């Protein structure tokens, strides 16, 4: 079970024990099982149309013949009627594996007083909702991790028990790891994804996109081959998204040993620009390869976020 009433990371008491401090702050997002189901029910539940065209049972339309097309699909009746070579196409219903990659590094455990829960908790809710939707459609769902401790990766499975396994794995996850001290974590985490993700798979990365190595966007974009779709969901805490500080402040990063002394009002604009620059850079890398970047804040409605992800995965604008 996730820890209720998380540790006071925001200027809170110092005497909480280390175990509680390391546990994920689920806040208002617990229990994950119910929250994810509620979110999934709020999303349009239905079988998504497979974008894959080719051999199948339902007619999908005509197109001009190009050399190399299978002559079996040449429509003779159309040739006689229109004196043109047309090829018949069919839509086929196939399974599309959903691969969820969750960032469980230390920065994902951050939660400000205004937020309903930690960033990882919010990402887990979204991931579980996506898994439920995918499983309901008969698509297998796999789970991978970026950093974290005691995180169990799950291969792509379908069926009724798959949702429970995914929820259990998400609940057992403990934030940990430092991307600044170990940049190879990204490569180690994405390598099995690239290896196991089949053609047409949808890869959803849920991360705050902070402290990622410089090569991370390229690594992520490399997944968008073999007709795979990559959606990067940036999950931020409202404090991170708005930078509401005023006056002199000293800020300490979760990963690495960065300590910044600054004036809140004076630094806000520069910070927000740098934050947006990270997302924009990833977007510039992913979009040409059919990927999308979805921006989310933990105070956003998870239903809307899931719809945005589904829309992005379906090729619409996020």
């Amino acid at each position: 079970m996730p820890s209720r009433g998380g540790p006071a990371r925001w200027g809170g008491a110092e005497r909480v024990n280390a175990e509680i401090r390391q546990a994920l702050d689920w806040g208002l997002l617990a229990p994950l099982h119910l929250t994810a189901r509620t979110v999934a029910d709020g999303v349009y539940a239905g079988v998504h149309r497979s974008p894959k065209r080719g051999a199948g049972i339902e007619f999908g339309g005509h197109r001009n013949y190009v050399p190399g097309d299978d002559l079996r699909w040449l429509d003779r009746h159309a040739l006689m009627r229109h004196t043109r070579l047309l090829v018949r196409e069919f839509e086929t219903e196939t399974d599309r594996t959903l691969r969820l990659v969750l960032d469980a590094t230390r920065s994902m455990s951050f939660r400000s007083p205004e937020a309903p829960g930690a960033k990882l908790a919010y990402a887990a809710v979204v991931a579980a909702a996506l898994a439920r939707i995918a499983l309901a459609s008969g698509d297998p769902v796999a789970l991978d991790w970026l950093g974290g401790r005691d995180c169990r990766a799950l291969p792509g499975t379908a069926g009724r028990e798959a949702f429970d396994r995914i929820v259990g794995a998400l609940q057992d996850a403990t934030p940990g790891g430092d991307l600044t001290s170990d940049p190879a974590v990204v490569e180690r985490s994405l390598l099995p994804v690239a290896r196991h993700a089949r053609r047409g798979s949808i890869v959803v990365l849920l991360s705050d996109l902070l402290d990622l190595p410089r090569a991370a966007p390229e690594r992520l974009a490399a997944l968008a081959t073999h007709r795979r779709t990559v959606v990067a969901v940036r999950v931020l805490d409202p404090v991170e998204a708005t930078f509401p500080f005023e006056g002199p402040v000293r800020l300490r990063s979760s990963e690495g040993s960065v300590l910044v002394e600054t004036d809140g009002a004076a630094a806000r604009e520069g910070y927000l620009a740098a934050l947006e620059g990270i997302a924009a850079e990833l977007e510039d890398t992913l979009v040409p390869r059919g990927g999308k970047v979805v921006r989310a804040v933990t105070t956003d409605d998870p239903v809307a976020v899931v719809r945005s992800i589904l829309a992005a995965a379906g090729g619409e604008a996020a």
Partner: protein
Amino acid sequence: MSFVVVAALAVGLLVAIPLAAHYLRRGRARSQEFPPAALVPKRPPIARRMNRLEDRFLLLVRLLMVAALALLGAIPLVRCSRLSLGREAGASVAFALVVDDSLSMRATTDTGKSRWVLAQAGARQLLRSAREGDAVAIILAGRPARLALAATTDLDAARRAVEELRISDRATDLAGAVQLARSSLRQLPHVDKRVVLLSDLADTAAPDGDPPSWAPLAKLRQPMANCGVVQAEQRGRRVDATVACSSAGSARKRRLEVVVDSPQTDSTNARAAHLDEAPEAGRVLTSESLAVRSGTQTVGVEVGTPGADLSVRLTGTDAIAHDDVAPVAPEDSALGIAAVVDRTAASVLTGGMTTVEQALLALQGAATVRPLTLLPDDLRELRAYAAIVLDDPPGLPAEARAALSEWLERGGVALALLGPRVQAVQLGSTLEPFASGAVRWQQQPESDSIDLTSLSWLGSEATSLADLGARGRAELPGAPMADTRVLARWGDGNPWLLERTVGRGVALTAGLPASVELSDFALRPAFVALLDHVMSLATARAGPLRSVAGSVWSFPAVEASIQGPDGALEIRETGTEAQRPDEGDTARRIATVELAGRYRVKLGEVSQVRIVTLDPQEVSRQPSKLDARAQDDGTSAGTSQVDASAELALLLLLLFAAELVMRLLLRTRRQASART
């Protein structure tokens, strides 16, 4: 200090709270976790500057506020050390301020201020605490004690009088000052009377009496280590200086230096030296170490004939620097007295000095007695003397009479003791200006004793002439010359002592010689008293060439001016004062010498140098102890309460306002910096 005051002041310890908060805030300045901290641009200078601005000014204001609050709670119980008058049931007080203006009050205390400054400040504080209806008198305790301000209820006048007080080099006359203070308060109707001693008490103890005296300033009675030059005199090629020291330690490692004061001199030294080049001023001629002992010591040094005015000074430092320098009195500054005496007639059988010389020396004045066999007939020689005593003169030749008359005209005083030789006056000689015509010597006088009632002006010593038993007398003329008065008579009414005024001078004529064979007149105390009278007359006319600080110089009605160490000295007219009952009233022009040093006096065409010296007791005497009652009697308060609540409350309000303004300014500045 009561518990309430301590508790209120303890509130001041709360200044530690804003101080601690300041350091805590500076130390931990809102440090918090923020995962994307690496993306935040650093602005430490702005942050630190703003932090510093806010912290320092606000911290200061807050500390001041807490301190002011603590003081506000303690007031009016805070006491300030300041003299004031305690009152019994609020009644008016009559008090006499005895302010000691003697030399010893120049001593520096451990506060860095002199006793005089502290005493004057104490007088001001006491007058500040006086109220309408209080009476105050101010008495100066320098010798002789003087009334600076008669008892008055005009407090403004008293304050002005205190401001006009000046310290002098006088000795201390504490007893006289206390008596004067008591007498000045005696006639006042006030029930509560005080005598306040603002003195170092370096004198004999003040006499007991009513009202009792109160000496509130203990700092004035701190012991001092001091050495001072009392006087210095040139004798031939030597300079003898009298130095007084309060302790042996104060004389240790100190030397007496003889210094050239100024090349010009009015004395005969320059003439005697016959020097072409006068020594430059400030040059040290010689020096001699002081003996390491307390009390008075005489230090003699050889100086030769420098031909200049000299000073002596002590090396090193002590409590009173003012008395470390003194002018050297020239050799001819002593009052010269010529004794024209026939040794064979006026000496006792055992030999030695004549009775006249012995009597003059017994006076122990600053006079130089020179025995002469003949009266000089040259005026220049007579000028060296202020007084001449002639014993049994056998008449005076014409040249001597002319010189003597002119000398008398210029202020000389001569006493002729007529004896048997008046019958042997030579041809061409007379007894003028002492007596006109022939004077007869009576071997068997009708009366051989003096009428003591006619001699009462001489004082108590006049009674010693009772039963004189003279074996002869000079029969002075019954019809005396003009300007002549009879000062004393024989028992049968014949004149015995005449006084004739000749110009500024006086000629005294007595009808009895000093010879012990004719009478024991010269052996009686009245003879010394008569010579003392002559000396005082001579001193009054020739002027005291050496005197002690605080002396009063009187001057005849001629144009006079005095230049002292402190500039020109004022000569003022006083009221009439009768010196003797039969003398009549005489207008006086006097000057009071407050400071020791060299004075240049010009009387008409005559110039002279007068030396004013110190009292050795004043230099070396330590303050005397005072009984506890006099230190702090119950009716007089040494401290007073000061209520400054209104001022502190206003300060507190100002501080509050300052903090508000500062916060507004900081907020505006922060917003402006955020915009930029």
